[in-house]
């Protein structure tokens, strides 16, 4: 049996994804060390600050690659929001993950050159890449240059609010990553998706 392959992930996307994945992994580990500093056996506060700042910049710069890549290449089409029937499509995919796939049904949204993500994948990527990460990066940059932050918002310390927002979004991205890693393992061969984000070639399931 020969496997059919589609070129899903162009070089620039894979470069972005590599930097992003490593950077965010580091950000999560050092972020936890910063927040639970003292009781955290992970990394010392001082080292965490340094590593968090460096990987924060790496992730921010590589985000630009993702942003402009999607703006100027056809990969951006994969991220276009279609509101009509959205809830129905999401439900359909959820039902497949919760039920259909165990009964070996055909996936409701077979992948092709035109559609490399199923709806759940697509909208979670949109949410993370166009809402969570930008806010995370902006609040992160603000914390890096705290003198730009408004001192008081009503009675609240501006830095407190920024750090709160930053930590909450950081946590959401961490949750995303856990789920992302798990969902990527769904398929005939649990490793094949990890291979594709490195080689660029998506192996069809049949």
């Amino acid at each position, binding site marked *: 049996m020969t496997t059919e392959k589609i070129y899903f992930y162009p070089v620039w996307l894979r470069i972005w994804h590599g930097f992003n994945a490593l950077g965010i992994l580091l950000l999560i580990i050092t972020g936890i060390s910063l927040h639970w500093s*003292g009781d955290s056996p992970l990394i010392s506060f001082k080292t965490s600050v340094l590593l968090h700042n460096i990987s924060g910049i790496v992730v921010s710069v590589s985000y630009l690659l993702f942003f402009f890549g999607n703006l100027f290449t056809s990969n951006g089409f994969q991220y276009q929001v279609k509101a009509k029937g959205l809830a129905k499509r999401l439900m359909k995919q959820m039902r497949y993950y919760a039920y259909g796939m165990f009964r070996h049904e055909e996936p409701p949204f077979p992948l092709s050159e035109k559609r490399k993500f199923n709806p759940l994948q697509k909208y979670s990527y949109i949410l993370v890449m166009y809402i969570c990460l930008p806010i995370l990066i902006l609040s992160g940059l603000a914390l890096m240059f705290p003198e730009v932050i408004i001192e008081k918002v009503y009675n609240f*310390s501006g830095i*407190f609010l920024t750090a709160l927002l930053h930590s909450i979004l950081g946590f959401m991205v961490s949750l995303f990553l856990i789920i992302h890693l798990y969902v990527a393992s769904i398929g005939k061969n649990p490793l094949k998706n990890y291979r594709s984000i490195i080689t660029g070639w998506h192996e069809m399931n049949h």
Partner: protein
Amino acid sequence: MRVHFLTEVHPSYFIQNHMLNRIPVLFILVLLTCGWNSAGQENNPLKEGAKACLRCHGEPVYTLINSFTDQSQKKMMNPYLIIDSVKFHQGVHRTFNCTDCHDSGYETYPHSADLKMMPMANCLDCHGGDDTYAKYQFERIDEEFIKSIHVQHVGDKFTCSSCHDQHYYQSVARNASSVQEIVDYNNEMCKDCHGSTAKYRLLTDKMQRPLNEIHDWLPNQQLHFDNVRCIECHTQVTDTLMVSHNILAKEQARKNCSECHSANSVLRASLYKYENLQSRSGKGTLNAVIQNESYIIGANQVPALKILSIIFLVLALAGIFTHSFFRFLKK
């Protein structure tokens, strides 16, 4: 500009001082021409004696009558000898006469040159062993102070008044309504010498390095300078003293970030122990964390969010676990 009187005196001298009450003619003339009726001072007026001195020492220009020419003449006051009368009136010693501490010889003008050499009372001469001031623990502060690097290096020349200007002293740590106020007031004291060569040279011949250069290892330097006191890192925290006075040698200063940036931050025992601040401004503990204190990464965790994040994490992992279980079952 501040005047500092660093020498000490025997208490008996101090008592004699009150008994000498010669008021010379010139002095009365000065009083008569003095039109002191600012509204703010009415409810807590300065002592007449203090007003008389401030007539000259409260202004950049003073008038005297030249006894040779018999004419009045204007002169510039030495800026270091000018007392800010507004700040004096806000200070704890506002009800004093100048001659309560300074020699009564100063009541005549021109002041005799010898007066400069007269020893002066020090803080403990009045405050030591006095039950009225027991809660301030003057003696314990003195013990801590004597151990401090200031006294160890400079010796007796370093006194309370090297940092606390008696003319303007306010009990800020006890009465301020925000931590920021305490921080600003405290750090001004340190910067008064460590940020100015003139006053520094009064006490030592050592070269002074700029503060930002000494602290260049500290990330977000300005933020730290603005929001915590120098003594947070440069003293040994003593729980039972309102403000620690044992300033440590620079080698012993805190450099470990997580001593402050952690759930059991030392700042809780130092800067943020002024809980009365919170009750005074009518805020609860959580509010105080949010509103009064600056945000300290690692020290200000929000318990509700911690619980929430654990719940979400457990849910996600449980979902993944269940899903993989069925994947394995239905292979």
